[in-house]
């Protein structure tokens, strides 16, 4: 057997080398300062493997752990998202990657699975979420049938899949309450060839990533076919927006204490400006920042995996006059420099830090208008009814076609007759009503949003009363309602068939919550009642009721009685002797005793 293993090793190595002919890996980091002292950092890691190698379980850059799960569950295309925070459209402008690598708050997962029928697809979906749950240390296994939907218009496969194919099933699920944290980042880094030890991924430190103002992690697996040659591509993305001021705080002093008086820039033009009165002035110009101060450590050289010939590791999107200092200077190759961005290539094994000093630029940063704004809020109060109010704003001078998808849990029961849409026309609508405890509501609306207009959508809903075991331990917080997904369909002119996406924030639904101390009171009360009832019935059943005289005296009682009698007799003898002269008293004493005896 040992011999076989020894022989198998070179064989498999040979196979890997052969297969790696088209195995590719690339990574890069996109940095872009945003208004209001924010910095966008987009990490992207792409690996691919030929489909043939994947099917024969030859993995090189494609992570084996994930590949085996996908094979076992017959998943053709997978999209997994972990998100935290909100993208501030008003100050940050357009979403990165057209919002395609974003998820709703918490965890979002959708996949196309191969299965003969719906039942098999559901089984495989269940297998998929449970395996991914283990792999990513997230509660993905809570995506059960009540949280799974099958959107029709909102998602299109990114890879070369034919969605019309009968044996492909799209499944989608969201967990808005899942808190994304370091334990989800670590498994994601483990999937990378350099595992966060080298290359741009070495900058990903949990402390900094999760202190970001907005942060999303994505894993996308898709088959891409060029003619007959097919390969499986995995795209791992970590996008975040960091607050430069907050991220630059030294690690040993992370508390934002009020700065010393000397460090506050005062507006001296104010008439009242004095040694104790200071109107704070915003620091002018571009903020100073550096890679190692923002991410807490420098880049640990390049990741040697994959072809390094035309690799671009870091792209910084800044105006031309902005100064960038590389420390040390020789750790970096400048690939290209344009008006708006600079591309760099890392060198292997050399630490690198980029520093951008404080600088006042002539021209202000251009502000890109977002494609669409969408807000969703809950209206009303009380524990029985509520309403949903959705506002979609199109700031552009052309109309846009939009798919609005809402996946509601079953305990939120929308009244569809109250659905009112003002300012737009419904082109198409798919609605799957909820089944209590089995299936949630799925609502998909295709809308045409006119140019420069605001669309308002409202509907009312009823809050269901849950069984007491269905409440989570912190029932009084309320229940999270997953974000609505808005897909902006591509205009006819563009060849891009995905369009762009945006998601609203999740909502908190307060349900009628019983006082959970009550069950304990009830349990105590019922137990007492039952104990009393049981006691008396038990007594009635096993006891025989007789008159006191009929009952045989217990030997112990007889002994005690005799003892008492003896003592009493001794006492009374003494008394009789003591009161010999007054015999009437003894008679009086005797009479009550005599009476009692008579009655008995």
């Amino acid at each position, binding site marked *: 057997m040992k011999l076989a293993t020894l022989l198998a090793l070179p064989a498999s190595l040979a196979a890997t080398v052969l297969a790696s002919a088209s195995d590719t890996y690339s990574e890069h980091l996109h940095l872009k300062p945003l208004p209001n002292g924010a910095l966008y950092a987009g990490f992207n890691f792409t690996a691919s493997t030929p489909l043939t190698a994947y099917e024969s379980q030859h993995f090189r850059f494609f992570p084996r752990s994930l590949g085996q799960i996908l094979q076992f569950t017959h998943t053709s295309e997978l999209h997994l998202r972990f998100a935290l925070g*909100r993208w501030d459209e008003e100050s940050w402008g357009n979403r990165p990657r057209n919002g395609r690598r974003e998820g709703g708050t918490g965890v979002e997962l959708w996949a196309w699975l191969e299965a003969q029928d719906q039942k098999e697809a559901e089984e495989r979906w269940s297998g998929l979420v449970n395996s991914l749950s283990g792999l990513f240390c997230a509660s993905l296994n809570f995506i059960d049938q009540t949280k799974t939907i099958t959107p029709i218009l909102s998602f299109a496969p990114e890879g070369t899949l034919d969605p019309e194919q009968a044996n492909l099933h799209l499944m989608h699920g969201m967990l808005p309450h899942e808190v994304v944290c370091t334990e989800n980042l670590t498994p994601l880094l483990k999937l990378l060839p350099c595992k966060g030890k080298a290359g741009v991924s070495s900058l990903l430190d949990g402390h900094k990533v999760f202190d970001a103002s907005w942060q999303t992690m994505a894993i996308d697996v898709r088959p891409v076919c060029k003619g007959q040659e097919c390969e499986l591509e995995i795209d791992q993305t970590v996008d975040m927006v960091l607050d430069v001021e907050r991220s630059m705080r030294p690690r040993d002093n992370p508390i934002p*204490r*009020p700065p010393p008086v000397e460090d506050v820039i*005062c507006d001296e033009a104010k008439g*009242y400006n004095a040694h104790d009165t200071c109107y704070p002035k915003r620091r002018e110009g571009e903020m100073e920042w550096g890679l190692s101060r923002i991410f807490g450590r420098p880049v640990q050289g390049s990741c040697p995996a994959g072809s390094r010939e035309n690799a671009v590791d870091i792209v910084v999107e800044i105006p031309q006059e902005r100064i960038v200092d590389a420390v040390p200077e020789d750790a970096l190759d400048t690939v290209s420099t344009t008006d708006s961005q600079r591309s760099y290539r890392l060198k292997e094994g050399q630490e690198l830090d980029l520093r951008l000093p404080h600088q006042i630029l002539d021209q202000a940063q251009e502000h890109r208008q977002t494609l669409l704004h969408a807000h969703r809020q809950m209206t009303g109060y009380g524990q029985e009814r509520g309403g949903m*109010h959705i506002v979609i704003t199109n700031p552009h001078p052309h109309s846009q076609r939009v798919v609005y998808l809402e996946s509601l849990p079953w305990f939120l029961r929308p009244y569809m007759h109250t659905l009112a849409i003002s300012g737009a026309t419904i082109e198409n609508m798919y609605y799957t009503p909820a089944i209590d405890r089995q299936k949630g509501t799925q609502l998909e609306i295709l809308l045409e949003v006119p140019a420069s207009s605001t669309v308002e959508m409202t509907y009312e809903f009823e809050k269901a009363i849950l069984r007491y075991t269905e409440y989570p331990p912190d029932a009084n*917080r309320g229940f999270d309602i997953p974000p609505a997904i808005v897909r902006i369909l591509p205009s006819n002119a563009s060849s891009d068939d995905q369009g762009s996406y945006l998601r609203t*924030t999740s909502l908190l639904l307060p349900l009628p919550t019983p006082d959970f101390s009550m069950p304990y009171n009830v349990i105590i009360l019922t137990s007492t009642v039952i104990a009393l009832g049981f006691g008396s019935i038990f007594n009635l059943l096993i006891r025989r009721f007789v008159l006191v005289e009929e009952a045989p005296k217990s030997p112990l009682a007889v002994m005690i009685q005799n003892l008492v009698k003896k003592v009493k007799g001794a006492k009374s003898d003494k008394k009789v002797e003591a009161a010999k002269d007054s015999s009437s008293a003894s008679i009086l004493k005797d009479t009550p005793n005599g009476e009692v005896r008579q009655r008995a």
Partner: protein
Amino acid sequence: MGLSLICILVGISWLLLLPLNEYSRQTYISENAILPGQVHTYFGGSEHNVFRAYRQEVWSLGHRKSEEEVTDGLYDLLQEIGLRPARQPYSFQVAGETIEGTNVYGLLQGPRADATEAMVLMAAWRNFDGEVNYSAVALVLTLARYFKRWSVWSKDILVLFPANSTYGPEAWVSAYHSTSTIPSASRNISALPVKAGALQGAIALDYPVGPWGKRFDKLDVLYDGVNGALPNLDLLNTAVSVASSQMGIGCSLHGMIDHSDSYQDRLKCLAKGVMSQAAGHATGPHSAFMPYHIDAITLKTVGDGWHDEMSLGRVTESMFRSINNLLEKFHQSFFFYILLNTHRFVSIGSYLPAAMLVAGSFTINALALWVLSGRGPVESPGKPKSTSEKLKEKALVAVNDGKDVMLVPKAELEVIERKMFLPAIVVLGVHLISLVPLYVLTHKEKSGITFAFAALAISSYLLPIYLSGVLVRVWDASVQQLQMLQSFSLLFVGATLSTWATINFSLALIVGLLASPLSFIRPITLGTSPTEPNALLNIVHAVATSFVWLITSPPLALFALSWYLGKDITWMLVEIAKGWAAQGVWSILVIWSVWWPAWVLGGIVLVSSIRFDRVPPAFDM
């Protein structure tokens, strides 16, 4: 009758027992997550310089001419701090007056929050007494700027500057829940352009001091909500514990700065709490939040001491950190309580029996009257008793009980048929009529409201006399029917008040006590012959009941309240009308539609036996 008197007396003495240590409890923090005062507060240092500058800014804004300049100024300041600012104009039309204003607010998004929850930090531009709230507005701005640097917020923070202390927050919070954004005749509130998640708590600051500054002695914690709703006791305890234990600032309630914790002071605090809860009116900017189940309090600086704005800032910071810690809504602690001082409270289980006993006295009397109304003989009210005595003597029945034989008038043994239609109709009618004063006093313009009130007061006194005349003379109501009338009325009062006691204890208690003499009203019998043995007693009873009935009337009570508050009756009536229309205060409904009808019906019964003609009725039953 005796039993219901005992009920009332026990109810009152129950209240007097509550301030004792045996019947009240020490306050405690029930929700472990709050951890009050466990965080170190850093607000201070250079923030004080910034605060002084903001106070100068706010001061100069306060001396601008138009309201618009003020809102624009606050809007710009919020924007400069980096919050997402927004405006909300609103207007109310009440009592011929227009209350207008614009709320300015800003959203501070918690950097790592998921937008599902939010907290509110507010400072009304004008405080409850109408002064410009310079220091509080400046402090809130400074705090907002300071909070922006922290990444610990799990909830968004809404910084709100309502234009005034009552209607601004009311407009804002109702628009936040989109409940009344459709304009109506009395209110026109615009929708909020910026919103966040579910509101978990709100803290208002009240510190109307200009740039010269003024140090304060204590923080007065205002907690009464609209319609007597109270915030969760945990929030109040957090404020008290942060202020007194962490910062060393004493707290007070209802402006009682020198609370010595004696029995008298505790009782006074209790009485003040009960009075303000019964009034049901807003007591500060926090009050409007309570109907939406958002726990809110106002911290008001009182007295002359050595604490400055930075201490108040640190208290606020610590409180926000505590609310931020909440994983659930405030729900652990009490929502129904009466405070005796900042550290002692009476829970609902201890105080509710007082109101229930008072309400129960009505029901007991109603049942007694019902039993009485079933006994014969059927009489006309005010008839000389001698005839009925004779009647009784005529028909005696021998009742055997073992060996004993008893002679009982026959009429007393017969259960007569109750003719309920007339009393039922009259009770219903009077309750319907009660909507007239309610409508008039809530819809009349300010100029005519005092006149309308006077007219209503006079007609309130005339109505029972007129109605009883109609009842007795035209409809020939019998004594039994009058008893049933009173019984129905008392039953209604008893049932309503005992239900109301669970919603607003204080209102039920006060109305119950004021209406309690109605249980003991019996027809005055002045027409009896002076030779009767109890004539003098009868006259004394008649004079006493009429006097009590005359002085415990709803109009007179309102008048007495205005006298007690030292305000004009017009001012009070307009405030009541505003409360009804703009904030939905229900106290006035209880007074006019529960107490007033009972009082009128009591009056009917009271005067039903008085006969002015002294001529025996022609028709004798």
